């Protein structure tokens, strides 16, 4: 055997994990924020994608072909995303993109997706109304997430709300919707304040909150650091109002220790969902990753399900041809840890939402369940 071909064989074996020859693999591109702001959750997203691919390949692949993941770092931002999308679409020539990313990264990637004509399933909750023929979303938008929280707080007797966010598209988008929803249900917003994304000093805002007479607060800070900083300073200042956080995940809640106790979250996935699918999923994750396991969350589970949704679409279309897959992607459904998911509504998905409360040990207990919440009019033109 000549050396170059030996090398090629070795590489292909490595890439395919040894199970199949790589030539006919269906390649799934995963641009994700391995560095930058999203790098806290990105590993969990990669893990759940790996599990989905392993399960599907173990069961014979898709149309007899194995799946193969191609991961690329988008550095959680636009510039990195361009590199990642360029690489995946034009260099690695993937058949589909499935990823959880920041809105900036998604927006940066979309023109490349359009040029490359590749289906793109976006698996992160976001501020909504991103529309593109190639883009499908299987995570929640404000219309699905905010109402459960406000309804719950209202039932608890809160009339006056204080809104706190990070100054970016998601933070503002969420709170804008929250304000209109609060007002439409008879509540009153007594304050709405934002801090820059990298801001660390919430002092003035907390003092305003304490002086406002608010009965509940809703926050939508950037994931990770700003969440932790705000919560630490809130607790330090002795704020113990009902506290709903629109952007905290279970992993981050854990790193705050006792400070996070009592926080209300609204999500399409929490680990405490009591279903056979979720139990099987968690067991499989634990078995596959052991000590390395990153807590599955509302960003990683949609990623897992999206791989299965793509599988279903390819099987229905009978090929990986982009147009054929896009045509049927809104017709297929998959029942996963979050329940039955179908991206039928203007490229978005109706979802069951769970209202959870963080406990002293960082775990999340489901307080209330809201079935099949509609994403509303996201992309009426599609």
């Amino acid at each position, binding site marked *: 055997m000549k050396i170059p071909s030996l090398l090629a064989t070795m590489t292909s074996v490595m890439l395919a994990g040894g199970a199949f020859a790589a030539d006919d693999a269906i390649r799934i591109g995963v641009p994700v924020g391995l*560095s930058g702001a999203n*790098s*806290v959750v*990105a590993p969990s997203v990669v893990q759940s994608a790996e599990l989905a691919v392993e399960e599907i390949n173990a069961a014979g692949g898709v149309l007899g072909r194995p799946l193969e993941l191609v991961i690329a770092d988008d550095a959680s931002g636009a510039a990195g995303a361009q590199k990642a999308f360029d690489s995946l679409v034009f260099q690695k020539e993937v058949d589909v993109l499935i990823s959880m990313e920041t809105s900036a990264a998604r927006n940066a990637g979309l023109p490349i997706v359009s040029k490359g004509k590749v289906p793109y399933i976006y698996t992160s909750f976001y501020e909504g109304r991103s529309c593109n023929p190639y883009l499908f979303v299987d995570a929640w938008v404000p219309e699905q997430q905010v109402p459960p929280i406000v309804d719950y707080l209202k039932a608890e007797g809160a009339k006056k709300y204080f809104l706190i966010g990070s*100054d970016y598209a998601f933070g503002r988008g969420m709170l804008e919707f929250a304000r209109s929803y609060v007002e439409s249900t008879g509540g009153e917003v007594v304050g709405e*304040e*934002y*801090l*820059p994304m*990298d*801001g*660390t*000093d*919430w*002092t*003035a*805002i907390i*003092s*305003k909150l*304490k*002086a406002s007479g608010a009965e509940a607060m809703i926050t939508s800070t950037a994931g*990770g*650091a*700003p*969440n*932790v*900083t705000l919560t*630490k*300073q809130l*607790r*330090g*200042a*002795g704020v113990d109002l009902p506290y709903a956080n629109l952007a905290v995940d279970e*992993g*981050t809640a*854990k*790193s*705050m*220790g006792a*400070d996070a106790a009592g926080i209300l979250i609204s999500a399409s996935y929490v680990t405490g969902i009591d279903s056979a699918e979720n139990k099987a999923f968690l067991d499989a994750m634990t078995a596959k990753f052991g000590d390395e396991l990153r807590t599955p969350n509302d960003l990683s589970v949609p990623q897992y399900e999206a791989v299965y949704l793509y599988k279903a679409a390819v099987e229905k279309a009978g090929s990986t041809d982009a147009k054929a897959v896009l045509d049927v992607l809104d017709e297929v459904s998959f029942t996963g840890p979050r329940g039955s998911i179908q991206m039928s509504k203007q490229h978005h998905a109706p979802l069951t939402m769970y209202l959870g409360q963080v406990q002293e040990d960082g775990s999340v207990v489901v307080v209330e369940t809201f079935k099949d919440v509609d994403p509303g009019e996201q992309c009426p033109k599609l």
Partner: protein
Amino acid sequence: MTLLLDIVTTAAILFIVSAGLLAIFGVLEIVNFAHGAWLTVGAYCAVVTGGLGLNPWLALPLAFVTGAVLGGVTERLIVRPLYARPLDAILATWGLGIVIGQLITLWFGRDVQFTENLLSGTFHMFGTSYSIYRIFALAAAVAIGLGFAFLLEGTRLGLSARAIIMNEALARALGLDTTRVRLVTFMIGTGLTALAGVLLTPLTSVDPTMGVSWLIGSFMLVMVAGSSFGALAVACLVFGGAQVLVSTFISPILGGITVAVLCALVLRISSKGFARV
């Protein structure tokens, strides 16, 4: 009342964060752009202390020593060749900051880390409740300020440092070991910065990039303060106060850039800043 406390404690926190940078800039006339990285190193000392199950207060001495030792190595290897090239020193220390940040990431991961609170609870006074920890931060700032005053006025090292600030060539001619004074000053500066990192843990998230957001603010304050701790205290009060006032009465977003913009304008009007205070 709350407003007043907000102003004073904000100034105190700014002072704690900037003091180490000032020590280095004042004596060495080098801007340590790895300042943020040292804050991060300090905060991770708190993480390690917690991980070992030790009393969280032990993180303070641990951070000081770690910061000082790493600072010593840095001074010797990176800063010393660049005293004559202050702009290059900014760049080299910025690069060092990247390296430290990535090393922490590789070692501890990107995640936000859990740290034990040093002090929690609130304090009731004049009809308002206020964070005990912020009051403690105020005390810590005063302690650091007094400590430096003593160090500068009451010790040989302080005398040497002041001599170097005034006239380095003369100091060397008089037989002062300026190389050693620079080394020790740098170590004290970085040790103090790491200590400040621990003091920040109850207030902010602990992650590999946590230091960067403090860098610009403290950098600007130090530029305004020059080489005087008194001036730094005044600068922290004035600009920290302005930040709180702008955040409270106009917008916290503008508040976030208040310190940087005001400092720049002050320097434009009077290039010596508050150094004469």
